[in-house]
């Protein structure tokens, strides 16, 4: 057992150096606004040109073939440098892992390079009005045609969809099917004929997600991922990634915890808030070490990934609540900490609510009866 990171120090230094030279001096506008989205897309192009937008992918698709440890280190440096939020996240962290597991070589070659280059930004389209935590209740349909599929129905809470280029999600391809069966995983253009995007303002009014309406939207057969009717299986490989380390890496919280400690000091190191700041720092460190433990294991963590999702989402809320309390009367005012707070409040809800994650842990990890 060791925590020897010397093998990745050269990589760390290279990333740190590039970020020091390239991270914008003034923060970009919020990525949940039209202007901010464009600025973040431009930033993705710069990252992509340096082959830093998806370091763990193979070189052929625009990555660097980085090891999981190198990826963790990249994330530490990325957030420590105060680099912009990742507008490409749905594609890089959710869709790409599914393509690597279930996609064809043609799909990988067609979809991944423009994703890495920041040319195509992806939105996720999981939930429907009647299918939130109970995702298997979804009803949007995909009907086979001679040369592809026709999509009909509605998706909602589709993050980044207000300004993104393409989306991915599950559609019921067998009208007689129920629940997890008869679903197909499809990619679709958000500007196709028949797609209506209605942006939804999140808690602070910014259009961070959208409703999608499908009216006979044509999708070619090449945009089915995995087997027709086997979409649930393919999606679950993505869900594991979403709940595991990749959606919110430890580096993000380490950097935020350091900023919280600095904020606490700048505001007079109030002893009444000391223990809360300490707990946030401890938890950020715990998540970092848990990440090292996870990538050191030889077995698949499976349902245990749910524990990560609960932990980082609650840590994120705790961290930002503490920051707002440090700011006192200024806490309610627009600013980076408030933006982070609003973002954090969604964490316990998306990617499977924390209540669902607790059920998963109780039943599949601890073995309690269903």
């Amino acid at each position: 057992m060791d925590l020897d990171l010397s093998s990745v120090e050269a990589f760390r230094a290279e990333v740190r150096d590039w970020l020091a030279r390239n991270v914008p001096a003034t923060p970009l506008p919020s990525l949940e606004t039209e202007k901010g989205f464009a600025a973040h897309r431009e930033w993705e192009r710069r990252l992509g040109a340096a082959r830093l937008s998806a370091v763990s992918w193979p070189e052929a698709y625009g990555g660097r073939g980085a090891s999981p440890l190198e990826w963790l280190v990249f994330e530490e440096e990325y957030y420590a440098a105060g680099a912009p939020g990742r507008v490409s996240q749905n594609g890089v962290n959710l869709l790409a892992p599914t393509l690597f597991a279930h996609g064809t070589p043609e799909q990988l070659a067609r979809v991944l390079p423009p994703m890495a280059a920041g040319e195509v930004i992806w939105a996720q389209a999981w939930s429907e009005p009647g299918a939130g935590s109970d995702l298997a209740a979804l009803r949007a349909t995909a009907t086979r045609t001679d040369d592809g599929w026709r999509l009909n129905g509605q998706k909602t809470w589709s993050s980044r969809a207000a300004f993104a280029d393409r989306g991915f999600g599950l559609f019921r391809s067998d009208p007689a099917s129920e629940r997890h069966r008869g679903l197909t995983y499809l990619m679709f253009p958000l500007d196709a004929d028949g797609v209506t995007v209605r942006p939804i303002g999140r808690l602070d009014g910014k259009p961070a997600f959208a409703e999608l309406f499908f009216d006979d939207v044509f999708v070619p057969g090449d945009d089915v991922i995995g087997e027709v009717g086997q979409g649930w299986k393919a999606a679950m490989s993505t869900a594991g990634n979403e709940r595991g380390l990749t959606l919110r890496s430890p580096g993000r919280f380490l950097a935020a915890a350091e900023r919280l400690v600095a904020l606490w000091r700048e505001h007079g190191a109030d002893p009444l808030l000391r223990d809360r700041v300490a707990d946030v720092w401890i938890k950020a460190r715990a998540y970092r070490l848990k990440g090292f433990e996870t990538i050191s294991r030889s077995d698949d963590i499976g349902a245990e990934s749910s524990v990560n999702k609960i932990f980082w989402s609650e840590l994120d809320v705790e961290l930002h609540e503490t920051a707002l309390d440090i700011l006192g009367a200024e806490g309610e005012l627009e600013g980076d900490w408030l933006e982070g707070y609003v973002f954090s409040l969604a964490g316990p809800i998306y990617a499977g609510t924390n209540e669902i994650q607790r059920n998963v842990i109780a039943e599949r990890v601890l073995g309690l009866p269903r």
Partner: protein
Amino acid sequence: MKFVLDAEQRLFGETLHKLLTEAGTPGVIRSWAAGEHDRTLWTALAQAGVFALAVPERHDGAGPRPIELVTAMVELGRHAVPGPVVETLAAAALFEGVGDEELSAEWLPRLAAGHAVVSLVPPSAEEAPPCRALDADVADLVLLTEGEGLWSARPEGTPRRSIDPARRLFTVTPAAPLASGPAVREAAAAAYDLGTLACAAQSLGVGRALLDITVAYAGTRRQFGRSIGEFQAVKHHLANAFTGLEFARPLVYGAAVSAGSPEFARDVSAAKVAASDAAYVTARIALQVHGAIGYTDEYDPSLWIRKAVALHSAWGSPANHRARLMKALS
């Protein structure tokens, strides 16, 4: 980088688990609490190599091996082993740090072999100690540090009773000087960090056992015609306990890995806060899920519940360690 136990370390933990399962620790705990201080288990632990982990090879030990020490203490916590185990391990670090070869040669080989039971007052630099030592009447030697002085000490009067019936805390007073000088102050700090790490690992083991016991109980106890583990309220309690323990573990082992580095004290404090909080939360949940039976003295799981409460404040309260951590971050 490989941040998981290797096969040999896992085997060591499994061997101790087997030994302690066969020893039937609930009976040992109750005897210890009743004042019968049989050393059979202590000797068995010494033979398994537990105390040697804090003793250097030149004094017949195998240490320092902080990762194995944590592995052992997790198992001892899992079985709620009574006695001044943490104190004896910390005493080894204290002797080693003081560097008086005569003292070390007198005590360390005996300590490693399980022939000397040592207690001490946790030598915290931050907290004004109440000068209490665990099981001081049982110990062959009781240690007390004051500034640059190391003393042997003697217990006074009858012990204060802890919520953990197996923990008996004695007020001690200095008896005879053993060593003095700046090395004592440094050695005391090192001993405090090692003892705190051992206590954190012990808490983690206590919490782990409580989770296992309670999951098993929730799966078998029936009310309203079904097992209570089917109820979501119970499931979520247990998922919360699991989450806390899962994230305390890497902090405890991470602190062990950082032994000898400038971050050790900071990392030990983080580990102690997380492990003792996680064990305490698990104890509360264990009590709630067991219901009234868990609240009884006679029911064995209450031995673990009570130990979790006691260890929460032993070797520095969480507030103390949070303060120490924040100081280290500046």
